[in-house]
């Protein structure tokens, strides 16, 4: 039996959350020795994009990319191994959590410098357009990316050339511990700013995964019809600390009340209630799905644990092409 779209979205969100919570739970073991930026609470935009994009479409992202990688079809085992610094990781241990790639899934790469992959995504779209191919590129960004110059420069070029690129903005109100109020003028709409740059922009509730999916699918359809670059802003909220496994509502940059209000809008609980009530799933489906996810996550951590570390010589490979490496003596 093939899954319905709502079932797929729920399953993908449950899977992302299970992975992120497993990372959070095990982080104190000190075996994942790199910064981790978790997407717990904001799984919906990733899951929605994963379903709206075709497997052959491409995606790039930033520091908070686990969810995007997984939703796009990135290999879970290779991601967990990467976070553990293992040779079997998706970057052979060289990149860690902030650098993920799975070319077979069209997830070209995520990097750690805010805004860094925005022009890269536009360049991938240029290559696709010039090759006369139908695929598009999804550029996952956060609200802070609308403060970078490179975003406006890239949007301008994308609009100029009507490139097949979707800027998908998860507006979670914060950049690290800095609220939008100290970074952008009051009343500014990110979507309107994008629209002023020539991107066709829409905005919606990023904790409503079905609505998010509708917005992204509509934008993707416009891209496929040749209507040029699109921007979708989805309002959501990060539950855990900016970087790391803990909660940080106690340190004073946001209120516990604000957190609780957003937690009540949990995208997973919301869709689960909706589908249970409407008969889209039943408790047996939920139990089976959660059980299968748990097994998969446990297997991924076991794989990472059992995997070898890269040998010391690997610290000095992949820097130059083999041709150049051979003439550096």
């Amino acid at each position: 039996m093939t899954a319905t779209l709502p079932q797929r979205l729920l399953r993908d969100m449950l899977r992302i959350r299970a992975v992120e919570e497993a990372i959070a739970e095990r982080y104190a073991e000190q075996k994942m020795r790199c910064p981790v930026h978790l997407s717990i609470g904001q799984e919906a935009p990733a899951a929605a994009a994963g379903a709206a994009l075709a497997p052959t479409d491409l995606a790039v992202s930033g520091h908070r990319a686990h969810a995007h990688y997984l939703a796009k079809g990135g290999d879970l085992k290779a991601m967990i191994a990467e976070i553990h610094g293992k040779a079997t990781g998706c970057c052979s241990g060289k990149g860690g959590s902030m650098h993920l790639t799975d070319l077979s899934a069209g997830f070209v790469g995520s990097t750690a410098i805010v805004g860094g992959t925005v022009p890269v995504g536009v360049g991938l779209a240029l290559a696709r357009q010039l090759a006369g191919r139908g695929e598009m590129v999804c550029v996952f960004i956060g609200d802070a990316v609308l403060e970078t110059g490179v975003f406006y420069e890239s949007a301008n070029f994308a609009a100029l050339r009507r490139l097949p690129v979707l800027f998908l903005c998860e507006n979670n109100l914060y950049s690290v511990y800095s609220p939008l109020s100290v970074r952008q003028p009051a009343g500014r709409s990110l979507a309107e700013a994008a629209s002023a740059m020539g991107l066709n922009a829409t905005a919606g509730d990023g904790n409503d995964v079905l609505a998010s999916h509708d917005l992204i699918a509509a934008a993707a359809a416009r891209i496929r019809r040749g209507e040029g670059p699109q921007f979708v802003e989805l309002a959501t909220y990060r539950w855990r600390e900016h970087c790391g496994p803990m909660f940080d509502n106690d340190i004073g940059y946001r209120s516990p009340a604000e957190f609780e209000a957003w937690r009540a809008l949990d995208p997973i609980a919301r869709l689960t209630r909706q589908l249970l009530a409407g008969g889209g799933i039943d408790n047996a489906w939920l139990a089976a799905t959660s059980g299968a996810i748990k097994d998969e996550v446990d297997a991924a951590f076991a794989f990472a644990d059992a995997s070898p570390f890269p040998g010391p010589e690997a610290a000095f490979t992949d820097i130059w092409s083999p041709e150049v490496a051979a003439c550096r003596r």
Partner: protein
Amino acid sequence: MPSMTYGEAIRDALAVALARDPAVLVYGLGTPDPKGVFGTTLGLQATFGADRVFDMPTSENAMTGIGVGAALGGLRPVLTHQRLDFALLSLDQIVNNAAKWRFMFGGRGSVPLTIRMILGRGWGQGPTHSQNLQSWFAHVPGLCVVAPTTPEDAKGLLLNAIFGEDPVIFLEHRWLHNVTGEAPEGFYRIPFGQARRLRAGADVTVVAMSLMSLEAAHAVDHLAREGLSCDLLDLRSLNPIDWPAIDASVRRTGRLLVVDAGQETGGVAGEIIAHAATRLWGDLRAPPRRLAMPDAPEATSPALTAAYHVRAEHIAAAIAEMLGRSTDTTPLVAARRFPHDVPGDWFRGPF
């Protein structure tokens, strides 16, 4: 003199500067947030107000150019980057405007802008959160580049940067923030272009910088117990460099080892060795040596960083070799009671 951490010394310098001169501004990502840039800006906004101490958009290039303009307009801005790597977005404003302004307008106008850049390392900081690119900045005429090692120097050099008339790249290693030492109270300036002699000795001149000066001090102390005596200069200032101090030391010892915190190719160590080779040839009794990071990015996996950095044992071994001696470095390795990818017991990740 009160004892304080390096991070506290930086905070103290900023507080002293803000209190002393209303022209001083302190800004950067996270400056007023609850973590206060690893504690270095904590409480400053409450004391000095949100007009002078403030957060900023994630707009490094513009906020650097705005700092240039503010400095030309009579202010003394201090801009902080939590990692040097983020400041790379502002290279245009640093190199084409800040560094050139005085020159390209024939001396009309100066840019007293201080840019703090924090150097990351370990705990999976990885390829884009751990770069030591001091040589890039030291290469640009018009910029001053300092990399203090001790709390006293951090405070005095930061105050000198703020109250001087030049654009300054102020490099603070994340692994130094918790290092404790004595630093004078109140206002004082340490001039640029002066190395600090951390250990006096006669056999080998060791020139180091930033965190590498601490590693070198461990190495030199270890060798002293074996009867070898090293003259250890903490560079402090990478441009201008204290050539007279280096010259005088090398003339006495005839041997030079330079320990660089950056990559070997095109690094500051190469510059110092070129200086020795071209100006001190007749004084050298052995080929000069350098220890630097290899020409490879820092990987994320701890398996790939274990042998990547220069540590005290490598420095000790290199010095001993230059003197035709051998040394047992096991005590240096044994003295570290925590994993190689953290600065000490106090660091529990993730940033």
